[in-house]
């Protein structure tokens, strides 16, 4: 599929190696020697006495090397060179200047216009040979360079596509992004947690270009996957830190700030590890309401972060706005050596009049400031308005209720409720298991908890919410019919709920885990199921309570309540251990 650098060079020689050498010189007598020598080296030679004619020859023939005199009859040599550089972008044509006077100032103009080398009249065959060999090397280098730029452009497209696939659309969020090289070491990520809250991360890798962009994908992966599974920002940042520490060489790191906006749009939390101040702007005046300074070293420097990551919790009002930026924005220097600077940025915020116009004001001031200048660092500016529409795409009706209470006296309690359409979109078992892992309290092994929850949830969903029990009880007792019917019902599921609750308790004096699963269904014959379990009878897979005998084995106590839509399971460490050792 892919051509190696050597292949490319060979192909290049085949296609272009037989091209002409063009000599542009009005004094034909002066070049008879040059022409003869080039031919003796095996080159095909074209000769032109004027710039205009030379342009025509280049258009009609495959010319791959040009000798040009600094002064031509109809135009200065530099004009012809300018034309060649503009028109032969496909394949680089080296240009060698023919100089008759060593102090010819026009030579400098010609070199500035794109000339590659020069020879002074009186040259020997050896000089010509050496010059041609140098120009061939130059052409090959140009070709390789072009290939590497092409590869970077393709790589950038792949990376951009991968990133935009991970990011969610955040209504009203605006991003200004300029990169110093093809690849950017700046990164903006957005994701939503199961509770409907919003996570936004702005990061800046050391340096810029490809080496800075290498860490982008793993960070984007961890950020989106962990957010979607319900991990809190602290845990996400710590994991990213750990990953980057193993991935990046010493001296490379990632500064980052992370913003979490609650689903109720009342609170926001901000973490800042080595980034410039994050601003919260007042909705009406646009004035700076809060400024969140960096409180940690950038990520990827230390292997682990032992202590708690400090963060700031802010009250927000609809219309307030967060502004985050990388230092490339304020560190940019204009043509007279003046820095854009933090005070200019803050001044623009104050002047804008309303939070809404701040982004535009900064963007246009920045564009004006560095118009036409090449950037030496990547630049990113992000504005996140706290509008009601920010969370619109996650309608409150379908929202997942997600709560963690940590209380040292009572232990912790964790509850997750999935409603309607979320039942078909989200697998709560993984989220709950991850949350449990997060609590760092291992009464039950992760594997056992996963088995227990999977069985209870499947039962609650299939026989509770989806009411699939009657399919098995009716005449059509075949697996395919069951599966088809299940998929059909899941597809149009927009009602009901399943609630999963974990609580740390003491049971008979032992550290235990209480698991409650409740669904909106009509229940089932749980009395029959339980007596079946005690009598040792096995159930067909897919029928009511499949998997429940396994749960019974793994836990200390199991009780169905009410009509069979609620189940309480208690697992303690002793039971768990004894099972594992059996």
């Amino acid at each position: 599929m892919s051509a190696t650098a050597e292949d490319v060079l060979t192909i290049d020689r085949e296609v272009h190696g037989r091209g002409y050498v063009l000599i542009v010189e009005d004094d034909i007598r002066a070049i008879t020697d040059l022409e003869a020598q080039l031919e003796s080296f095996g080159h095909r030679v074209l000769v032109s006495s004027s710039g205009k004619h030379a342009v025509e020859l280049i258009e009609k023939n495959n010319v791959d090397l040009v000798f040009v005199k600094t002064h031509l009859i109809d135009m200065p040599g530099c004009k012809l060179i300018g034309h060649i550089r503009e028109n032969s972008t496909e394949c680089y044509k080296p240009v060698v200047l023919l100089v008759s006077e060593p102090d010819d100032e026009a030579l400098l103009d010609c070199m500035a216009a794109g000339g590659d080398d020069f020879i002074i009249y009186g040259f020997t065959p050896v000089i010509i040979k050496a010059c041609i060999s140098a120009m061939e090397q130059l052409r090959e280098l140009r070709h390789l360079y072009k290939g590497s730029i092409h590869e970077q452009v393709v790589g950038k497209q792949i990376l951009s596509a991968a990133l935009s696939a991970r990011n969610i659309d955040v209504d009203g969020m605006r991003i200004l992004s300029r990169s110093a090289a093809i690849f950017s070491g700046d990164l903006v990520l957005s994701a939503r947690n199961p509770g409907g809250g919003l996570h936004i991360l702005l990061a800046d890798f050391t340096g810029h270009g490809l080496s800075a962009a290498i860490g982008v994908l793993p960070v984007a992966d961890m950020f989106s996957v962990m957010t979607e599974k319900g991990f809190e920002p602290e845990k996400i940042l710590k994991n990213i830190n750990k990953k980057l520490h193993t991935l990046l060489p010493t001296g490379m790191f990632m500064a980052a700030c992370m913003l979490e906006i609650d689903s109720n749009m009342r609170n926001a939390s901000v973490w800042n590890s080595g980034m410039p101040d994050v601003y919260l702007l007042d909705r009406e005046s646009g004035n700076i309401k809060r400024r969140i300074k960096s409180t940690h070293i950038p990520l990827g420097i230390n292997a682990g972060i032992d202590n708690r990551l400090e963060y700031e919790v802010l009250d927000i009002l609809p219309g307030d706005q967060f502004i985050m930026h990388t230092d490339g924005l304020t560190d940019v220097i204009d043509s007279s050596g003046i820095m854009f600077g933090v005070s200019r940025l803050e001044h623009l915020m104050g002047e804008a009049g309303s939070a809404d116009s701040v982004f535009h004001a900064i963007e246009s001031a920045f564009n004006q400031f560095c118009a036409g200048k090449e950037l030496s660092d990547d630049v990113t500016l992000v504005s996140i308005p706290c509008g009601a529409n920010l969370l619109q795409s996650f309608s409150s009706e379908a929202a997942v209720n997600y709560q963690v209470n940590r209380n040292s006296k009572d232990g912790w309690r964790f509850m997750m409720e999935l409603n309607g359409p979320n039942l078909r979109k989200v697998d709560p078992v993984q989220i709950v298991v991850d949350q449990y892992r997060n609590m760092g309290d291992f009464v039950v092994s992760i594997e056992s908890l996963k088995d227990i929850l999977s069985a209870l949830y499947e039962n609650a969903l299939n026989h509770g919410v989806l009411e699939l029990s009657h399919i098995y009880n009716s005449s059509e007792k075949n697996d395919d019919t069951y599966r088809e019917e299940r998929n059909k019902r899941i597809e149009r599921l927009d009602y009901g709920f399943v609630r999963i609750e974990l609580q740390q308790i003491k049971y008979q004096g032992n550290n235990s885990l209480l698991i409650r699963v409740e669904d909106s269904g009509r229940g089932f014959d749980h009395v029959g199921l339980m007596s079946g379990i005690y009598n040792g009878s096995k159930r067909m897979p897919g029928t009511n309570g499949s998997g429940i005998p396994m749960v019974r084995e793994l836990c200390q106590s199991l009780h169905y309540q009410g009509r069979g839509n609620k189940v309480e399971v208690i697992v303690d460490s002793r039971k768990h251990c004894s099972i594992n050792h059996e």
Partner: protein
Amino acid sequence: MSISQKISADGRKVTIIIKGHFDYKVSNEFRDAYRNIPGHESITYHVYLRDVDYMDSSALGMLLLLREHAKCRGGEVIIERPSELIDNILKVANFEQLFTIDYSSQVYAS
């Protein structure tokens, strides 16, 4: 921009003085200023930043490389007299958690 280096008579203290821009362009010079120092383990490296007028993130990276180099040899790194501008950059990165920063050092006077 320039980087110069002084080694104390007992060879245990190396002062690296940086002037002007401290950025990726001086990474080789900076590395040469602490590598291949003969003799002692446990060298204290003093990085003198009073005359630095610009510093980018790769300069922070270079300081981290020096820190690793020193740590591996039982030494340490002390950042001395950062100018206000440079101090702000160090503060944003919270480098005081990683380095000793000495604001009052008189060891070197230009």
